[in-house]
């Protein structure tokens, strides 16, 4: 190893950061949360931390948005599958609470660019 090797490696690392790490942050910022309940449909930002209470078919559910992820805190349903789903943070991940009629998904504004097709 010679003196300028470390500088050369640093240049390579800066190349990496410049080309690959920057566009990803840009991609994250276009995501949003869509919450569908029997009464309303809400669209929320992922970046704002908050706890929501939403009225469903059989009771009130609590939803928490924090650290760019969404999770169900409390639910009146019998199996608690929606709570067991845990945190969702990627595009097109989904939390479903069928007994209470609440659906939470993470979507992207320009999803046409990243996906070929979506089946429902």
């Amino acid at each position, binding site marked *: *190893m*010679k003196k*300028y*090797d470390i500088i050369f*490696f640093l240049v*390579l690392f800066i190349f*990496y950061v410049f*080309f*690959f790490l920057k566009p990803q942050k840009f991609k994250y910022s276009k995501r949003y949360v869509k919450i569908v309940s029997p009464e309303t449909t809400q669209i929320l930002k992922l970046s704002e931390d908050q706890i929501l209470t939403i009225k469903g078919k059989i009771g009130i559910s609590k939803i928490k948005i924090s650290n760019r992820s969404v999770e169900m805190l409390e639910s009146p349903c019998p199996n608690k599958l929606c709570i067991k789903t845990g945190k969702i943070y990627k595009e097109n991940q989904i939390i479903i609470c069928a007994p209470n009629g609440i659906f939470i998904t993470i979507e992207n504004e320009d999803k046409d660019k990243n996906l070929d097709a979506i089946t429902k």
Partner: protein
Amino acid sequence: MLSQNNKIAFWSLILIISSLIYYIENIIKLPIPFLRFGFSHIITLFLIFNNFSLLEILGINILKIIIGSILSGTFFSLIFYASIFSNFFSILFQYLLFYYLSKFISIYSISSAGSILNSFLLFTFLAIFIAKQINILYYYQYMYIFSFFTGLLNAFLTNLIIKKIKVKL
């Protein structure tokens, strides 16, 4: 100085060793596509650091790819063209780095930069001619790190060889 016969023996040995390594590496399939350690690159680095001319190094490399792809059955396929294209320019780049900057940087930098350029050229070739999608270049960000470390590994192995064997033609 070596005699004419010894020169022929030397070049054929170099060619056989590098094309064998190339062939064996093509047979072994790693779990991720296009992932390869590039051990045949050791021969190229060895030739560069023993002050051989650019023409000889490029000739050995192109012959290596031709023989290796005839053996593994990918002769004149798109992968064959891709590897000739990427090898040509990465060797040219490494030779120029060695020629102008070898006082400042060691074999480690030259090898890692060469392998990064090689995989980048492979991916651009893939994106333009085979997949016809630029999105594939997103996958290159993992390849960048991997090829950096394989470049370091190859440089380390070449260093061991250079210390043991010295060639003068």
